[in-house]
């Protein structure tokens, strides 16, 4: 009964709706934020993926793009912002600094080595800074991940 036609189509419908309206939170830290703005601007438009409405408050956002170097002083704020977001929330770690500390990993006493130490990350976008197309490709990879999520099939059927 687990993958019956009813639940699967309902899941697909829900996933389709959620993946095409990911609202990112304006969370620019460093150089990658400029590329994120360039992605939001006219030439490489993120709006075409339903992802262009940059929300200022974490309450109304369901995608956090960590764009830039996360320092130890900022890490607690990143954690607080992540916890304030509403539940179906996703994190894209953009740029080498957010992935694993990037160029600042060797003598960076104040740099957090990768944002996945404080926040669960869904997609890592490499680059320093990544091209706007690379960020769009990262968003598309995240959409693939959302596309086959099992929302109803796990919750309704207890002893799956």
């Amino acid at each position, binding site marked *: 009964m687990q993958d019956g036609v009813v639940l699967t189509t309902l899941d697909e419908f829900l996933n389709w709706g959620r993946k095409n309206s990911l609202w990112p939170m304006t*969370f620019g830290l460093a150089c990658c934020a*400029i*590329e994120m703005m360039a992605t939001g601007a006219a030439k490489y438009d993120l709006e075409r993926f339903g992802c262009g409405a940059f929300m200022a408050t974490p309450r109304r956002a369901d995608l956090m793009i960590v764009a830039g170097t996360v320092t130890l002083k900022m890490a607690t704020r990143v954690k607080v912002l992540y916890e304030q977001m509403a539940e179906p929330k996703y994190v894209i770690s953009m740029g080498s600094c957010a992935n694993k500390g990037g160029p*600042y990993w060797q003598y*960076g006493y104040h740099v957090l080595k990768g944002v996945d130490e404080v926040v669960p990350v869904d997609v890592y976008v490499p680059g320093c800074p990544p091209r706007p197309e690379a960020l769009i490709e990262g968003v598309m990879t995240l959409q693939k991940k959302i596309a086959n999520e099992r929302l109803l099939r796990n919750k309704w059927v207890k002893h799956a």
Partner: protein
Amino acid sequence: MQTRWDVGEPHKPTINTRTEQLKSDLLTLNMGPQHPATHGVLRIEIWTDSEIVAHAIPHIGYLHRCMEKHCENLDFRGVIPFVDRLDYLASMNMEWNYAMTIEKMLGTEVPRRAELLRILTCELQRIASHLMAFGTYAIDLGAFSPFLYAFDYREKILRLFEEVSGARLLYNYIWIGGLWNDWSPEQISRVTAFCDDMEEEAKKYHELLSMNKIFIARTAHVGVMSVQDCIDFGATGPILRGAGMKWDLRKNEPYSLYSEFDFDVPVGTGEVGEPGDCWNRYIVRMREVVESIKIIRQVIEKLEPGSIMGKVPKVMKLPEGEVYFRSECPRGELAFHLVTKQDSKEPFRLKVRSPCFTHTSMLPRVAPGQMIADFVATVGSIDIVLGEIDR
């Protein structure tokens, strides 16, 4: 008229007597590290008295990436990618200043074509950086379409830089002794085409935003910083010029080949509002774009073929000594204080004097007595970049 910015005691709350008994204390507000108007991770602790800012304390360090500690363990060529990441909106100017500091110490002779191409790239970078400042300042005050125009023309410059150096934002293009690769004549012709379009575009921006009544109402007479104030705080660049002082390192202490070009230094004269307010700082930046176009055209006339890399030893060993080199960046005067030991392969100490660092220290002086919305306009108008403040 009550003095607007005596730093000592905070602004006395102007509550009329009837509500005197209401015992309303100052409210602490965090214009926190994540805020649309702070251009990055700057936290400003504002003590407000019902929408009027009593005093503001900036907290920085949220993007302190230990760059100066890195520079003590990197050889001289390896430092350039880290110097790019200081002011990531004007990477070319950062690299150029660092390269000139080392060249002054090494005494290398940079070929004329390389010097001319450096001026060309850095003036293009100044236009791109001012376009960015124009776009984000409009967003701070709520106008979204100028952001799209500014980024449309900024993409044209980034495309040119990508063809020459390979990267869009952090180039590692200006090396010690010259340049990495050369500009082909076709690219140069595209630069002239860009300059002609940019001239009309600057006029269009003037109509679109500068003369807009709402924009003038939001920025004229707001966040006034007098010339004496700027000199006390060590403010430089568009802020000092916006206050009315004609000071530009490219004119007053000409480095490289700037003495050969004639361009004038735009100054905030107060045709709208008064000198030193947000509008004049903004208009100084927009006029600097036109001046940079003039310089680029003169450089292209003077270009002649030649080598682009001077004679630099393969393994760079610098003699003992100390150099403090200043250059004019889009945000103000950047300077590198380099200290080296005898025959050292890496800098013993590299201190970066960041213009935005001193501009942030002016905020507590300007904030008292302003409305919060005006304070947002003031922070936007001094155009700070956090990578350079926190290093």
